[in-house]
C-alpha cells in the first residue's frame, strides 16, 4: 500500500487537539511508516496541497479565512475528520455566539476600529463560530476536549490501514 497523504489543520481552537496528536508518542513511528504529513501547523508548508487522502481539522470555523480554506480543503481532501469538540460543536469558541459580533469585538479591542470587524489584514469574524459540518460534509467525528491520543489512534489507525473506523460508547465523550 502506498503511503497516505495526511494533513492536519488548526482553525478556531486552542491547539490542544494537536498536542493530543503529538501524544501519540511511539505510535507516530507507525504513522510515519504508513503516511506522509503533507500539511500541518507542525510542518513548514505554506499552502494546502492537492490530492490529500486524510485531513484532520481542529477548531471551529470562526472567520472568513477559515471559511474559504475549509471549502478549498474539502475539495482537495478525500476523507475529512472533525478533530475534537470545537470542530464538532464549536465548543468554547461558540461562547460568543449568543452575543452580537460587534459587541464582542468592541468589548475586547475597544471602541475605535477593532480588527475583525471588516475584511482587512485580519479576516472578518463570522457572526457565529460554526461546527465544520455546518459548512461542508464531514466523514468522521472525533469528540473530546481534547480527544485523548488513544481515541485519535483508534480512529486514525484503521483509516491508515484502509479500513472503516467505528467509535462508540466512551469514545464519543464530549468534554
Amino acid at each position: 500500500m502506498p503511503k497516505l497523504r495526511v494533513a492536519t489543520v488548526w482553525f478556531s481552537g486552542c491547539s490542544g487537539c494537536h498536542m493530543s496528536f503529538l501524544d501519540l508518542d511511539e505510535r507516530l513511528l507507525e504513522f510515519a511508516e504508513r503516511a506522509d504529513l503533507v500539511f500541518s501547523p507542525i510542518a513548514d508548508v505554506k499552502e494546502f496541497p492537492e490530492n490529500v487522502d486524510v485531513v484532520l481539522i481542529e477548531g471551529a470555523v470562526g472567520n472568513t479565512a477559515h471559511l474559504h480554506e475549509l471549502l478549498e480543503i474539502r475539495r482537495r481532501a478525500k476523507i475529512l475528520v472533525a478533530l475534537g469538540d470545537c470542530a464538532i460543536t464549536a465548543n468554547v469558541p461558540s461562547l460568543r455566539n449568543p452575543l452580537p459580533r460587534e459587541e464582542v469585538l468592541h468589548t475586547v479591542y475597544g471602541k475605535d476600529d477593532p480588527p475583525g470587524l471588516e475584511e482587512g489584514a485580519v479576516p472578518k469574524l463570522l457572526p457565529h463560530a460554526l461546527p465544520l459540518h455546518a459548512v461542508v460534509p464531514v466523514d468522521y467525528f472525533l469528540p473530546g476536549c481534547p480527544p485523548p491520543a488513544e481515541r485519535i489512534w483508534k480512529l486514525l489507525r484503521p483509516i491508515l490501514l484502509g479500513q472503516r473506523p467505528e467509535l462508540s460508547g466512551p469514545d464519543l465523550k464530549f468534554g
Partner: protein
Amino acid sequence: MISLTIDGVRVQAEEGETVLQAAKRAGIRIPTLCHLEGLSPRGACRLCLVEVRNWGGRLVPSCATPVQEGMEIVANSPRLRELRRTILEMIFAERNHICAFCVSNGHCELQDLAMELGMDHVRFPYRWPLLPLDLSHEKYGIDHNRCVLCGRCVRACAEVEGAMTWGFSGRGIFTLVEADLGDPWGKSKTCTGCGKCVQACPTGALFEKGKATSEQMKRPEIILEVTERRPRA
C-alpha cells in the same frame, strides 16, 4: 397480575406499574432523562419512548404509561434508536451545552446519553440563545444554558421538600425554570436551601457554588432514599 411482552420477553407486572418499571425488572434498558425514582412521572423528555406493536406501532413514553394486559412493547429497535438520538440532538441544539468547561463534565446524564445513543455530532443547527445565570443564592447557582427542562428540580421541590419554590415560566423553547414567580433565587421566601433540586438535576444547570469544571458530583438517588425514610401515618 398483568402479562405483557417487552422485546419478545414475557413480563409479569402489577396493575398500576409503568412500562418502564416492568422493563427495568426484566433487565431491559430504556434510556431516560426526566424520569427520577421517587418523583412522579412527567413524560417531558421523550427519550424513553417505546413502540406498542399491537397498537399500530404507536409511540408512548414508557415512564408515564401504565402496563396493560397483552401489550407487545418494542423497547429497542433501529427506529427507536434513531428517534431517541434525534430527540437528544434537539435537546443539545436548543441551549448552550458546552461539556468542556461544565461543572458536571464527567458526571452528567445528558453527556452519558450522548455516548449511549451514539451521538457523535448534532445534525440540527444550534440556536445559541442568550440565557441568564442566577448566582443570587448563598449556596447554589442556576445556569439556564445547561437546563433541559426535565422538571426534576420542580418535582423534587414540590413533592419531596414541599417548598414549591420552583416552577416553569414561558412556553416552548422560551420556558425557564424560575423561583417564586421569577424572583432571583437568593430572594426566594419559600426556598429552604435544602439543595434537593441540585441533587435531582441531571446536568450542570443547578450546581453548588465553588465547584469548578468537572467537580460537581450529583446524588439523584437521595430523592428516593428521602422518600422511603419518611415516616408514614
